Structure formats: C-alpha cells, structure tokens
C-alpha cells in the first residue's frame, strides 16, 4: 500500500513537471493555455489523492472548489483568445 502511494506521487509530480516545461517552452498562447488546463486537472486529482493520504474528509471539498474555478478560468482565457470576452 505504501509503495503504491509513493509510485502515484512520483508519477503525478513528473506529469506536473512536464506540463510546466511545456508551459515555459510553448511557442504560442494556445500551447500555454493547454498546459494550464492539464495542470488544473492534474492538480484536482492530486488534491483528492493528498486528502486520502492525510485521511481527512474535509480536504475533498477543496478539490471540488478547485475543479469548478479552474474550469471557469480556462473558459475565460479561451474566450479572450477567441476575441469575444
């Protein structure tokens, strides 16, 4: 059980790191927004997973709020890129 927790943490950290490198390198604004969307989804999943690691039920609410608000942020950025904000 402990090894599974470590493996999942390392894999999610590597995913965050590679999406962040794409955010730094990305040539256009669309690439950076896609990287931000990926970072938001990985962040939501990792918040739920850390809540399971600490065994606190109240921590899952943070993940729910973060999912809703990150979705709204990405939609607003997409509308700005489209030129219709």
């Amino acid at each position, binding site marked *: *059980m402990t090894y*599974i927790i470590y*493996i*999942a943490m390392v*894999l*999610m950290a*590597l*995913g*965050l*790191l*590679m*999406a962040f*490198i*794409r955010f730094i390198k990305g040539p*256009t604004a*669309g*690439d950076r*927004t*896609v*990287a931000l*969307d*990926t970072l938001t*989804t*990985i962040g*939501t*999943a990792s918040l*739920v*997973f850390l*809540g*399971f690691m600490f065994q606190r*039920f109240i921590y*899952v*609410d943070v*993940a*729910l709020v973060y*999912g*809703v608000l990150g*979705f709204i942020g*990405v*939609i607003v950025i*997409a*509308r700005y*890129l*489209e*030129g219709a904000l």
Partner: protein
Amino acid sequence: MSIMEIIGSVLILIGSIFLFLGGLGIYRMPDIYNRLQAGTKATTLGAMSLILGVGFLEPSWMLKSLIIIIFIAFSNPISSHALARANYKRKHFPLILSEDKKNMDAYREVIEQEDKEDKS
C-alpha cells in the same frame, strides 16, 4: 487485503499512469491539437480513475468522489472544445501530413472563403 483495497489500488495505479502519460504527451507532441488530445483526454481518464480508486479505498467518501467524477466528465470536454475552437479562430491550422489536404481539413476552406467575402 480485501477485494475493495485491491480494486482501489489498481485503479489508483492506472490513474496515476494516465496522468503521467498526459504530461508526457503534452511535452512531446508537435502541434497544438495533438497536445490538446493528449493533455485533455488522457488526463480526464486518469483523474476519473484515480478519484474512483480513492472512493473504493474509503467507502464513506464514495458519494463526494462520484460528484467530482461527474463534474470532471462534464467540464473537461467543454474546456477542450473551447480551446480548440479559440485556436482555430485565431488561424492556427492543424499540421496536415498527407497529400490530399482537401479531405482532412474541410473547414479551412470555409474559413478562407469567408475571409475573402469579408475583404471584398
């Protein structure tokens, strides 16, 4: 280990592997649309599987896990569609590697025709 713990552990492993593959795809792919596919679809499956695995490991959390899963299943395709639409409207056309370009990106001709009509 009971059967619920085995199912939850396998789901958590599958989910974290798919989250890693989403990050790898968004780093390695050559184009905005390929990156969008890798970064949105793989990440959606990974997040849903990992949260469902947590719900299996802690059965009293199952209701809230299902709420988060349903929300991810609704919100991620919407944001993916909005990003692809915004990139296409900004004239970042997809890389087309085959010979007959007309069959693969049919909407591009419509956009260019509309631009000509706007200029004239």
